[in-house]
């Protein structure tokens, strides 16, 4: 599909605007604070998930879902510019936040890249209608960064595979439908050559979802235990033992974050909901006139604006081939560090309300517990250390780190005891 085949940008924008204004609810950006604060009850969270599915269905029915997905899979077959126009029109309105990452990217993106025609026809339209929310079964308790060292095993049994093991750090797996799962199918070859990717329903016997309590009380992250989970071979994505080819692309899509043209995010909002504008925090602290606080507020806005334009540059550069695909790690590194800095700034402005607060403290409330959770932006979605490795080695071409497991059969690679949170 090219822009020439599809709707022109201004017609699309006008259509998107009319739909958004007439059908979606305006949101106070300060009200959507994302998954990392422990503020909603389970009932409220499930209601929010249901509303996200509903809004996704409304977008689908209005011809606004999957802007850059091919038409044959329920998308619109339009361009990243159309997606950007939709994002701009959505600014200030509700959107199906829980169906963007990881469902549309990386999961649906991986299906687009590697799925069979049958898999695409079965899942992509369902995803775009809000009927399937997906999770990444990628990280394992034995190690987050060394993804290729996955221990979850898949053993062939006729036309089926039998999976055993554990996956971790899935956000909201307790209300999700499908998982994209990286598993080991061959232990007698080096680690990168014995992996295979599968798709599987989350709600099934043999798959236990355990909710992890984070240090701030949030229970959105989950760990899954797979016990003799049977997956038909037709639910395999990519070739047997070639899962790393899929996995590499998978992690590229993950690093693209909201930069991916497959993802819908209202302009001016980072994934997972916007954070409170820093001047609101300063105002509630009664310190907006303090020159030091004004400096911090300016810094927070600076980082947010630079982040937006850096992501745009990288997205355009990758799309036109001016920048290598691995440059996605540049955006990931910047976003992670900038978010962490913003949490520090808010905590600094909050003063003693960062240590203890009441319901009357407005936007000062939770600045302290957000600060405790500060490192999440530098860990989730691949650590900033891994991003720095990718940038130095894959973008700048510097020598790779020496690894001791590269030419060893995976079963002979030394490993420590598994850890449990």
């Amino acid at each position, binding site marked *: 599909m090219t822009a020439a085949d599809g709707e022109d940008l201004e017609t699309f924008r006008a259509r998107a605007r009319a739909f958004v204004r007439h059908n979606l609810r305006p949101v106070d950006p300060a009200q959507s604070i994302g998954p990392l604060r422990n503020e909603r009850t389970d009932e409220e969270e499930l209601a929010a998930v249901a509303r996200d599915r509903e809004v996704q269905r409304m977008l689908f029915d209005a011809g606004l879902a999957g802007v850059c997905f091919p038409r044959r899979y329920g998308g619109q077959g339009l361009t990243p510019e159309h997606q950007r126009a939709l994002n701009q029109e959505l600014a200030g309105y509700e959107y199906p936040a829980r169906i963007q990452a990881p469902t549309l990217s990386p999961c649906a993106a991986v299906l687009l890249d590697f799925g069979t025609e049958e898999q695409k026809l079965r899942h992509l339209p369902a995803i775009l209608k809000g009927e399937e929310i997906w999770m990444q079964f990628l990280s394992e308790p034995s190690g987050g960064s060394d993804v290729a060292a996955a221990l979850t095993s898949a053993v062939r049994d006729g036309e089926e595979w039998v999976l055993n093991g554990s996956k971790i750090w899935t956000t909201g797996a307790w209300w999700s439908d499908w998982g994209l799962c990286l598993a080991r199918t061959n232990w007698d070859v080096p680690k990168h050559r014995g992996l295979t990717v599968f798709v599987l329903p989350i709600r099934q016997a043999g798959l236990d979802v355990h909710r992890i309590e984070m240090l701030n009380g949030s229970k959105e992250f989950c760990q899954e235990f797979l016990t003799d989970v049977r997956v038909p071979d037709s639910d395999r994505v990519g070739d047997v033992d070639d899962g790393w080819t899929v996995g590499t692309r998978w992690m590229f899509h993950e690093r693209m974050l909201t930069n991916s043209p497959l993802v819908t995010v209202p302009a001016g909002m980072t994934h997972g909901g916007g954070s409170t504008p820093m001047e609101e925090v300063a105002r509630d602290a009664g310190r907006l006139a303090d020159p030091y606080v004004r400096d911090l507020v*300016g810094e927070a*806005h600076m980082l947010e604006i*630079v982040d937006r334009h*850096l992501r745009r540059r990288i997205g355009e550069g990758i799309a036109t081939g001016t920048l290598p695909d691995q440059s996605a790690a*540049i955006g990931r*590194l910047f976003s992670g560090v900038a978010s962490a800095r913003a949490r520090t700034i808010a905590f600094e402005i909050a003063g003693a309300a960062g240590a203890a607060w009441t319901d009357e403290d407005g936007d000062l409330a939770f600045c302290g517990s957000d600060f405790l959770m500060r490192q999440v932006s530098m860990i989730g979605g691949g650590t900033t250390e891994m991003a720095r490795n990718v940038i*130095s080695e894959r973008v700048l071409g*510097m020598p790779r780190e020496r690894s001791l497991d590269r030419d060893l059969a995976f079963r002979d690679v030394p490993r420590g005891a598994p850890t449990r949170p």
Partner: protein
Amino acid sequence: MLLALSSDQELFSETTAKLLEELVPVGELRRLRDDPVGFDRDYWRRGAELGWSSLLVGEEHGGGSIGDFGLVDLALVAYEFGRHAAPGPLAVTNVVAATLSEAGHGGDEVIGALLSGASVATWCLGEPPPDDRLGSIALGVRVEGDDVVLNGVKRPVESAAVADLLLVTGRTGPGLTQVLVPAGTAGVSVAPMDSVDMTRRFSVVTFDEVRLPGAAVIGSTGSADDQVARQLERAVAIACAESVGAMQAAFDMTVEWAFDRYSFGRPLASYQELKHRFADMKTWLEASHAISDAATGAVASGAPDAGELLSTAKAFIGDYGSELLQDCVQIHGGIGVTFEHDIHLYLRRHTLDRALFGTPADHRQRLTDIVESRDRVA
């Protein structure tokens, strides 16, 4: 620099780079260290022939741009200036030429001389402490009959000793007034200053009862605030592009060094500690390109968020650029702080641009002002 240039822009930017490499290679920059002017007039004329001083000037006055927006083209020149630590009053001459052209002032002869490079102009904006913060103007412009009379001190003024024209920003009551002062006017005195840059020269310019006919006022008396704001936008955009060029040059030089330099039997580029710092620097560099381009584009097209993007660019590139350049020095070790090594040429240029037209702290405050006034409207 922009990821996608038109073929005309690409040619223009390559031609500029080639001319700089030919006329002001590093050896020439080192020679100019002791030159009181810091640049050769013939060099400036050669650049002017390429269009270095005509991009912001309307076609009716003999100017014109390569692409849709002259400021975007000029940012390409400024980027190359940064990459080569090139001499010459690029920002100030262009800012003055643009204002004269917009105000229809000075006639074709005055503007024509700026376009051909036969003359150069400078802008007298900053003042001594405590009036040295961004937006603070104390120099007085008094109206006396048909004349205006200037009293006050401006610093640092670039190329003041050789500029043929000085555009002076002063105050008449609550509003601003701009006056075009020809070099050598009675009551104007110019005293040289020390500077961090190799080739850019700065002076303290004192105006003591400097009397000029009212026709020397550019625009109208006491209401030049918007004109001054536009000048500042252009100057900041040019300074940002130049800074990014200096960052790119130092970064490239340091990456090469990391591959070539061996310690303990391995290249520096193989140490993870250094690789991670290079990754940070690459991130800051790409972010600087992105925000510089976005800000320049917004100013050029008159976008409503131009001021916000520009202050973001100046604050970010100033702070993070210094970290990048100083870390490049650090990775070079002792040789990095010698005069013999070239890296200081780029460190100097970035340091200069960081401190002029508002420091990072000034622009962070300005960002908060913008956000606050927007909240008030909303």
